[in-house]
């Protein structure tokens, strides 16, 4: 390894750690409204405390994802894709800042707080 390599690797790691730090300590809204977005359109928006199972379908009517909302948590319980990353991404609870995404199906689920404007984010 050359000097330039070591310098590059250290700078990159610092930048990404700072980015993660900014994210972790940024103001959190207490989001408890679950939003499901498919193909850039919001297809579901309801409280995370209301238990339900949402079937997400593709254009020809096949179920591609199932989102389960149970006891104040939401998670992806089914995906038709190969790697199932979205299922492994865990669950959302009140205040979660993370998002669960299923990129092959272009599905994204996340939380917003009552007074935030969803359309403003997703437009």
């Amino acid at each position, binding site marked *: *390894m*050359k000097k*330039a*390599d070591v310098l*590059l*690797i250290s700078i*990159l*790691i610092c930048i*990404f*750690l700072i*980015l*993660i730090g900014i*994210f972790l300590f940024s103001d959190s809204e207490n989001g408890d409204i679950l939003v499901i*977005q498919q193909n*850039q359109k919001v297809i579901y928006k309801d409280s995370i405390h209301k238990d339900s199972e949402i079937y997400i379908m593709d254009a020809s009517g096949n179920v591609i994802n199932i989102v389960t909302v149970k006891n104040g948590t939401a998670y992806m319980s089914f995906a038709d*894709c*190969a*790697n*199932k*990353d*979205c299922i*492994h*991404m865990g669950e959302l609870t009140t205040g979660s*800042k*993370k*998002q669960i*995404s299923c*990129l*092959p*199906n*272009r599905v*994204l689920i*996340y939380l917003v707080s009552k007074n935030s404007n969803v359309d403003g*984010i*997703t*437009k």
Partner: protein
Amino acid sequence: MNNTKKLTISAIFTALAIAISIAESYIPYSAIAPGVKLGLANVIPMTLLYVLGPLYAISVQAVRIIVTGLLRGNLVTFFFSFFGGMASTVLCALIKKQKIIEFSVIGLSVIGAVIHNTAQFFTALVILKNINILWYIAILAIFAVIAGVLTGIIAKYTIKAIERYSRSI
């Protein structure tokens, strides 16, 4: 090296890259963090960049992504591999060409991995139109640096082996 030899090496390496891509898609990386991948197949264009030059590296990478895309995944996952893979190989070729800052294979491999990640982030931005996904990309970028170092080390020894081989014949 004459043209026949160059063509044979690129053909073998293309086949190897496709096999590695497909084999790697069966490794359960999701156990570490969803979306993380070592990207072993990227050792191939990186090696070719040093052994045969940028044009061979870029074409082999393009063929690998198109063939793997046809064999596995859907259109969205194809766009992800395509933009990530092509951006990283083309920019690495350009960075290797400039003489202002000289990186070794490992440094170049780290740059390639991070560009791969960044290009995929912008693809995600276009596909999902949601800026909040940034948080996850930053976490993946740390893994990209680690993956870049590891694939860089593999590429370093592959390049050495091929250079020894081409001298011996």
